[in-house]
């Protein structure tokens, strides 16, 4: 221990004294901005707290839920460790699901392959090379059944990340559960089904926007009535952020998508309190720690206020924004990939301190390929270390009341409202998307960030600084190319074996219903039970609705 110096340094006693002292000291030659490019001041004080502290910060489990949606948060129950998994055919992914459940994972999350996300069967010409690569291939109810073999669908909660053909996958899932003897009302889980963000960011579409919205609306309406334990939409900012959005853009576009879905459901005559408690959200956790935490806190507050005051929800459960978080894939580097373990840990911690309900931590090798089993285990262990070793779960919202965090929360909220106003001026979110407004804002932000990195203003460790030491070969997971052939054989076997009559009948019903206003879900279930393939169903709908072509902006 060094003894204190004989003459103690002068301690500034007022803010102005401090400002003088700061002005007299040297500032590093660096940018003091967030990842999103927001200026950060050297110091925040009590003066930066909101004036109406009780009303805008409040208490956990109490309106406006800035400090968390539940009174006990992680002292009551930890977040769900939910690792996203899927590759190959249903058989391989089913093995990985069992592995994850055996290693302490508490919910399942299904990644579908690109052909499944786009509504193509595995033997479609555009599926070449993509089958089972980035997720599991699901062509029919038979695949869905094998995917969950040995897993009781009445017990486990399942998340399915699929959007444009979500209603079809939902029908496959319900039909597969029926075969296990589990009725729809007992099924618990989430389907992403956030169609607007597909046109904005993720770009996996099947139909023109208005028809995509209708199909999603049919599914939401049906699920709201028939599946009380199911979350029919996970309103997702994750992909918006991955596409290069800022934190404020992620927040604003996601919330605006959410409000649009609320409005659509209300226009269908649903009572807001009948479905709003089952809407959930999905956000990114990027590397700028405090900016992310502020984003989650602002998100909860805005959602609660708008649901109560604008949409008239009376049930307090309708005001709660519950969300899943995934660490940022886009923050991972192919260079020195082990550094990604650190990035992911920090991002995951932001999600936890932001009050997430479930979390996926990325594996360090995902800028290179689909993760290896070992990399997935480290990612899951990262969550367990945060939960059990760091002590951050001992108290609720430990950052609440932080001058900086509260100021940042207010600022990001203000920016979100600014975007809401601009979107309203364009005629609402559907119109804004058709006019490429969010797409253009994201492309601009993403380009600007890249320029900062290229100019060296923003340092990415191992990429534009500290680049030595990238010579170790990282073991990677290889998807066996033979799996594509295997899946093609599987779907062809189903087509050969099934009775063709009920398939034709169901597809004919589907075309009729697509042209009328009738809810499509019961007919999709009929098609699923008849072993119609995803591609056949999508094509039947495209016969009536057409496909979607984007005019790209960059």
């Amino acid at each position, binding site marked *: 221990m060094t003894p204190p110096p004989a003459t103690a340094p002068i301690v500034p006693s007022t803010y102005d004294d401090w400002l003088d002292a700061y002005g007299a000291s040297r500032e590093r030659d660096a940018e003091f901005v967030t990842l999103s490019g927001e200026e950060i001041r050297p110091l925040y004080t009590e003066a930066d707290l909101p004036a109406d502290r009780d009303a805008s910060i409040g208490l956990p489990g109490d309106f406006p839920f800035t400090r968390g949606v539940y009174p006990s948060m992680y002292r009551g129950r930890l977040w769900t460790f939910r690792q996203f998994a899927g590759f190959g055919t249903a058989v391989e992914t089913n093995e990985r699901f069992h592995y994850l459940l055996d290693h302490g994972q508490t919910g399942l999350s299904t990644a579908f392959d*690109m*052909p499944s*996300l*786009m509504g*193509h069967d595995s033997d479609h*010409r*555009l*599926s*070449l*090379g*993509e089958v089972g*690569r*980035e997720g599991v291939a699901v062509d029919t109810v038979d695949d869905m059944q094998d995917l969950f073999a040995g897993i009781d669908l009445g017990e486990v909660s399942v998340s399915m990340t699929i959007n444009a053909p979500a209603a079809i996958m939902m029908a496959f899932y319900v039909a597969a559960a029926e075969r296990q003897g589990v009725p729809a009302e007992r099924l618990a889980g989430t389907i992403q089904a956030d169609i607007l963000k*597909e046109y904005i*960011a*993720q*770009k*996996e579409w099947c139909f023109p926007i208005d028809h995509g919205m209708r199909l999603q609306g049919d599914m939401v309406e049906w699920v709201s009535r028939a599946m009380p334990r199911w979350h029919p939409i996970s309103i997702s900012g994750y992909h918006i952020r*991955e*596409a*290069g959005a800022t934190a404020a853009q992620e927040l604003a576009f996601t919330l605006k998508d959410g409000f649009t879905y609320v409005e659509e459901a209300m226009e269908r005559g649903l009572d807001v309190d009948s479905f709003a408690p089952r809407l959930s959200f999905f956000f990114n956790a990027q590397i700028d720690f405090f900016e992310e935490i502020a984003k989650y806190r602002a998100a909860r507050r805005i959602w609660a206020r708008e649901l109560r005051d604008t949409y008239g929800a009376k049930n307090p459960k309708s005001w709660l924004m519950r969300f899943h978080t995934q660490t940022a894939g*886009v923050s*991972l*580097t*192919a*260079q020195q990939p082990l550094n990604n373990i650190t990035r992911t840990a920090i991002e995951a911690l932001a999600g936890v301190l932001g009050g997430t309900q479930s979390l996926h931590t990325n594996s360090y090798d*995902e*800028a*290179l*390929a*689909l993760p290896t089993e070992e990399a997935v285990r480290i990612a899951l262990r990262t969550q367990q270390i945060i939960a059990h070793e760091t002590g951050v779960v001992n108290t609720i919202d430990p950052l609440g009341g932080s001058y900086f965090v509260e100021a940042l929360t207010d600022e990001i909220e203000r920016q979100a409202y600014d975007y809401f106003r601009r979107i309203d001026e364009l005629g609402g979110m559907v119109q804004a998307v058709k006019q490429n407004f969010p797409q253009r804002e994201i*492309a601009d932000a*993403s*380009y600007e960030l*890249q320029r900062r*990195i*290229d100019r060296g203003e923003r340092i*990415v460790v*191992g*990429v*534009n600084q500290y680049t030595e030491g990238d010579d170790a*070969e*990282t073991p*990677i997971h290889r*998807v066996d*190319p033979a799996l594509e052939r295997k899946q093609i054989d599987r779907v062809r076997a189903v087509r050969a074996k099934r009775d063709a009559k009920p398939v034709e009948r169901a597809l004919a019903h589907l075309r009729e219903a697509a042209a009328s206003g009738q809810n499509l879900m019961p007919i999709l279930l009929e098609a699923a039970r008849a072993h119609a393939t995803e591609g056949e169903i999508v094509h039947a709908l495209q016969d009536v609705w057409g496909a979607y*072509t*984007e*005019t*790209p902006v*960059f």
Partner: protein
Amino acid sequence: MPAAAEATAGSRTRGRLRVVVAKPGLDGHDRGAKIIARALRDAGMEVIYTGLHQTPEQIVETVIQEDADAVGLSILSGAHMTLVPRIVELLREQEVDDVLVTVGGTIPAGDIGELEALGVARVFTPGAPVGDIVAFLRERLEA
């Protein structure tokens, strides 16, 4: 539909490089492709971005129609070992031998050598500085 960023074939400025930025396959990850398209445009090149979900046949047709000097293939779906060889093969079949082919995306180190052996000039992985990509194209095409 390919979106021409700037003037197309008819009004080609002499000496300006023409680059097709293409998204083969089904993945919708277009952040990188758009950044590269814009950076190349800002660097004075003529850029034709194909948009998403293009088949190898569509890409090769665009390369020929646009009389491109280079084509950058952006793939983040893991399908590169199927799609890139197919595109290279189609270019050969069409006797297009003066177009520089580059690849960007999540490409494992072990695949890079194989792609280069097929005739890919360079593979850029996530985090590759945009300036390096611009410099590489200039060096190889303006020499």
